[in-house]
């Protein structure tokens, strides 16, 4: 009964959140619509990343590489004149997925700090390529995107030059991606992945091939991170090597920790908290990362399940009493 109740309430909360996000551009200023777009993209990246940290117990410091690969694929295709948006999404996902498969193949045999370091090393290799291969990537200047393709859907010709229409493209794509990720974590695969986080040895005692499970998780995570990268390139009109730098890879980590790695939506809320805090603090000081650090320490110490994770647990505990 408790399980049904949790599912019922989660469904209602999700419905409210989706409705609010859908209607918000009608009531909030354009500046905040732009910010909300960024939150959704980075939220997708953080949720994809959390498939590794929250479900498989793997701390990757190389997610920026897949984000960057998605962004560069989109930028290169747009510069080459491709106008099919679906094709651009698909290519961005496939390139990031293939890279994640290769990186995952070499990384997942290791755990903890060794896994973190090898993913960081791979990430920095991609960064170096993006930074130094000027002819293709534009080097440190990045690759600008001048024309955004239209989307022909149900007889409509949609353009994405206004922040509102771009928001709805991002909102719809992120919604579909999150739904697919939700299906993944609630599938038998998601369950056994959670079991590997707890103890990989025990998973092998029930016939689970831990390495294969981790590679699949890493590849799925990379693919969705690549999709976030494509979206960011369209949103930002630019792909830059900074996406692939290790410091960019720490963003989803911070977002997931603030929101909570133990719940599916935690990292998405973490992304929201991260950007809203940035907006508030930056009004008073440029050194907002310093204050982020001050906030992060008590969150890690007193909210080990993250802000959203803690609230969720409190809420459901009270409900189930």
């Amino acid at each position: 009964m408790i399980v049904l109740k949790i599912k019922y309430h989660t469904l209602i909360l999700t419905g409210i959140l989706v409705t609010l996000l859908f209607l918000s551009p009608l009531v909030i200023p354009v500046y905040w619509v732009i910010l909300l777009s960024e939150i959704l993209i980075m939220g997708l990246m953080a949720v994809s990343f959390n498939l590794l940290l929250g479900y498989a117990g793997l701390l990757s410091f190389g997610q920026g590489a897949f984000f960057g690969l998605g962004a560069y694929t989109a930028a290169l295709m747009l510069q080459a004149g491709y106008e099919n948006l679906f094709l651009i999404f698909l290519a961005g996902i496939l390139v990031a997925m293939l890279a994640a498969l290769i990186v995952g193949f070499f990384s997942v045999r290791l755990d903890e700090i060794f896994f973190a370091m090898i993913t960081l090393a791979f990430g920095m290799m991609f960064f170096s390529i993006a930074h130094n291969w000027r002819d293709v990537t534009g080097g440190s200047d990045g690759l600008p995107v001048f024309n955004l393709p239209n989307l022909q859907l149900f007889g409509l010709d949609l353009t994405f030059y206004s922040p509102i229409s771009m928001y709805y493209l991002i909102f719809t794509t992120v919604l579909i991606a999150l739904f697919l990720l939700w299906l993944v974590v609630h599938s038998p695969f998601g369950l056994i992945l959670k079991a590997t986080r707890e103890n990989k040895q025990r998973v092998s005692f029930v016939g689970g091939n831990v390495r294969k499970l981790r590679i699949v998780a890493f590849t799925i995570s990379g693919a969705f991170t690549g999709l976030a990268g494509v979206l960011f390139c369209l949103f930002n009109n630019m792909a830059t090597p900074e996406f692939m730098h290790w410091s960019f890879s720490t963003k989803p980590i911070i977002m997931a920790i603030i929101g909570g790695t133990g719940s599916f939506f935690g990292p998405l809320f973490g992304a929201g908290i991260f950007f809203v805090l940035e907006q508030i603090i930056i009004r008073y000081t440029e050194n907002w990362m310093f204050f982020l650090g001050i906030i992060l320490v008590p969150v890690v110490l007193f909210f080990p399940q993250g802000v959203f994770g803690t609230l969720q647990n409190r809420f459901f505990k009270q409900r189930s009493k």
Partner: protein
Amino acid sequence: MLKVDDIHTYYDDSYILQGVTLKVNVGEIVCLLGRNGAGKSTTLKSIMGYNHPRKGKVYFLDKNISRQSVYKNVRMGLGYVPEDRRIFSELSVQENLEVSFSSAVETQWTIDELFKTFPLMEKLRHRKGGGLSGGEQQMVVIARTLACQPKMILLDEPCEGLAPVIVEQLSEIICRLKEHFPILLAEQNANFALEVSDRGYVIDKGVIRFSGTKEELQQNDEIKKRYLSV
């Protein structure tokens, strides 16, 4: 069904198993007796592929599995109930069982059949594994192993740390399991092990010191005194 042929196993430089040979036939419960640190768990781990022997061979269903990984052995039908009741403490009892169904093992069991076979678990269905008592955890691990459709089970010290009344229930379960598949039972508690077994081996310092039927073991006072502290 299972044949262990002169295996030598090391933990880094420590020479643990120094030529262990044993076999388990269809329809048997065979116990591996010995004191703490005698090499019982290492023998089971070597068979499972968790710690491969450096020398010697392990045959299961006439196939050499000496170098095979743990998950492949499980998929072949080698069930393993490790010591210390290794359950997934963050997962519910039901999820602990579902993990077996998610791991690509071909099984005829369903969740409901498992709960029917272990009715005591039914009321614990949604409880987290970490909140269960030792006996309950042991039951979940045995049920989880059954869900993997084993053709044989290795049981590593199932009674360790359990109350006598739970041990009694457990021996009933083990005897019921025998109807379905052979068992190799590693145990320190010789009285319990000999009660449920058909044959036994005594291991000490990584060497098999004695093998015989249950009656031979029960009547051999010298072996009991020297190696089993009964």
